[in-house]
């Protein structure tokens, strides 16, 4: 009579393996799917030859409570979202919105002219326009045919 020498994998081991396999598969097809959550606030960065535009969703933060600093190629956005003021008798059913101080720095792809940085705020969306430094702009080189 023959005995099986190896242990049969349990159902859970098999499920785990399958899950890992599926995660790996999805990550190759759609890399953003399992990315860790960005730190607050999340930013989108737009670029062209003349400069950069940074947009960020910062709902519930007054524009005067947002600080924007540019040092060389580093942009820092910081501020605070105050906690909701509710009277002592009120009670929460659900609390999903965060509050507190935040700060984050973003490495820019090139040096920007700090004097020409402009920021606008509308409906909880911050938009910062950062023009590229004049001396840093790429030079066009003409090809001369001989």
């Amino acid at each position: 009579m023959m005995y099986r020498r190896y242990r049969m994998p349990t159902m859970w081991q098999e499920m785990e393996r399958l899950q890992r396999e599926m995660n790996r598969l999805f990550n190759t097809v759609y890399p953003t799917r399992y990315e860790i959550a960005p730190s607050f606030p999340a930013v989108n960065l737009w670029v062209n030859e003349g400069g950069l535009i940074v947009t960020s969703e910062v709902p519930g933060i007054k524009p005067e409570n947002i600080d924007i600093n540019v040092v060389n190629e580093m942009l820092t956005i910081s501020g605070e979202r105050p906690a909701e003021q509710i009277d002592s008798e009120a009670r929460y059913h659900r609390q999903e919105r965060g509050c507190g101080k935040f700060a984050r720095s973003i490495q820019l792809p090139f040096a920007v002219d700090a004097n020409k940085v402009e920021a606008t705020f509308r409906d909880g969306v911050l938009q910062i326009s950062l023009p590229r430094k004049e001396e840093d702009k790429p030079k066009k080189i003409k090809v001369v045919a001989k």
Partner: protein
Amino acid sequence: MTDSEKVLDADKQEVTLEEGTELTRDRRTFLPRTDIYETKDALVLVMDIPGANKDDIDITLEKNVLTVHALVEPHAPEGYALALQEYEVGDYQRSFRLSNEINQDKIEANYSNGVLRLTLPKAEAAKAKKISISTK
């Protein structure tokens, strides 16, 4: 500050649809982060809906189900290419079933700095009545 307060989080959660249904707009739809608290005479909802236009927020209350639907137009700066994307722009939608009876005529909605604030006053009948116990 208490320990129960949440920290700021930039993660956006997408709306899950019932099986067999689709959204009419070909766009991602997110669940707005919401605080709900109850005061003596009202229920207050505070929702993060950044980027919406005041006129594009639709609030309906039907059969005790409150639905907020906000359309958000993506703003792509002209002549620029997206180099880094940490968040996606999309619509917002969320429904809540309200347990208290609400005075539907006196609902107040206010939208500022990307935050929608709904004050739903309780109907007279739903207000808690205090009953005093008398001793004989």
